């Protein structure tokens, strides 16, 4: 037997009882379920686990698998694909794949399956979910982007083929983290006249070297000289659009926040740009610069450690 060993995947012995197979499945399924685990390979591990469980829980399939595992397959290897195929589109929310215990909840969802597949051959396509990384500039200006994604097409017998789709997506102005873009009918195609699923894109704003977004508000850390804080100054600040003039009032403090109204991400109620003043120490370049510091030291009664009660 080449490739993947189902017993190994499930961490059980070859002579494991059906009871311990079930227990092992439940334990590992809770660990690797893509809705529960944040591991990157959780989905892959869960698919393997499902494929293994699908075979080992079934007496006939297990006997067949055991035989092939010991003696090798008569014309090629065990075709694990036939068992994995149905699970391959795991994250795309297919309501048609009901299986498992016959309890109350199952009977609720199970009806969907019969209505979807049992009485007629047509079946709706699944929704497809992806994350879409968007820069702050793209959100500020709005943008169009050609994206490619994988969809799964099924023929009448349910065999799945993966297909790369390309689509031009308009990224509306002012999108923020966590919003979803829904493209109706752009998900997986339906089977025999079933409706196609939808494509959902979850917006994920990319980190920006200067700006930090919180909903529609943007924060910028602005380095300032000590005298700009004390004396006041009008300075240029970058925004997501054109640079703007900002008046630093006299006697400002480091850490103080100034607001440029409406300069955040656009929307029904546009966000603001918050400018946080951050004092930056000048480095004396020569002796006369140094003397300025000497003079400050002599003249100013300043103890920066006053609040921690030391000199």
């Amino acid at each position: 037997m080449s490739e993947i060993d189902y017993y190994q995947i499930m961490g059980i012995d070859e002579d494991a009882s059906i009871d311990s197979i079930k227990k092992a499945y439940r334990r590992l399924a809770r660990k690797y379920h893509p809705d529960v685990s944040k591991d990157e390979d959780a989905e892959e591990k869960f698919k393997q686990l499902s494929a293994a469980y699908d075979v080992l829980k079934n007496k006939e399939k297990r006997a067949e698998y055991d035989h092939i595992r010991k003696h090798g397959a008569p014309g090629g290897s065990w075709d694990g694909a036939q068992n994995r195929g149905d699970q391959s589109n795991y994250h795309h929310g297919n309501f048609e794949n009901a299986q498992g215990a016959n309890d109350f909840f199952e009977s609720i969802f199970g009806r969907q399956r019969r209505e979807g597949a049992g009485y007629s051959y047509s079946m709706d396509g699944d929704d497809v979910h992806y994350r879409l990384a968007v820069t702050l500039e793209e959100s500020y200006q709005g943008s169009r982007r050609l994206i490619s994604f994988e969809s799964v097409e099924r023929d009448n017998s349910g065999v799945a083929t993966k297909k790369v789709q390309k689509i031009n997506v308009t990224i509306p102005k002012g999108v923020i983290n966590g919003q979803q873009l829904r493209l109706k009918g752009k998900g997986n195609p339906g089977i025999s006249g079933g409706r196609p699923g939808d494509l959902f894109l979850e917006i994920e704003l990319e980190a920006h070297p200067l700006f930090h977004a919180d909903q529609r508000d943007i924060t910028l850390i602005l380095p300032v000289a000590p005298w700009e804080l004390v004396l006041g100054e009008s300075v240029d600040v970058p925004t997501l659009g054109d640079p703007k003039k900002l008046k630093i009032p006299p006697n400002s403090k480091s850490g103080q926040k100034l607001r440029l109204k409406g300069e955040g991400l656009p929307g029904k109620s546009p966000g603001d740009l918050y400018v946080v003043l951050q004092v930056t120490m000048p480095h004396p370049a020569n002796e006369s610069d140094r003397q300025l510091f000497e003079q400050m030291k002599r003249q100013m009664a300043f103890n920066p450690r006053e609040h921690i009660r030391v000199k």
Partner: protein
Amino acid sequence: MEISQSSDRPDIIDQSTRYSFNQFCELCRMEPEVVILLVEEGVIIAEGRQPATWTFSFQMVKRLKRAYRLQRDLELNISGVALSVELLEEIDQLRDELARLRSRLETLA
């Protein structure tokens, strides 16, 4: 929420988006009776008093799909599913909050 006709003009879905009972069933591809049962069992939350005036947030679409997957794969009963989806959503929120605070901290450092 308007349904957009143009092929690449997406609907924007956010926290303020609400779906009517019919829209919700359509979006989840669920029979109305099933949705009513799941609301009664507390797996999903409907705003409003009766199905005719119910509205649903997009979060409930996600919750319903997740509930379905968890039930299918982990062989949970209905209260187990209801508890799991609630806890998982809370973990998601805490993770987001943590990520937000961490990145905030980095900008200030």
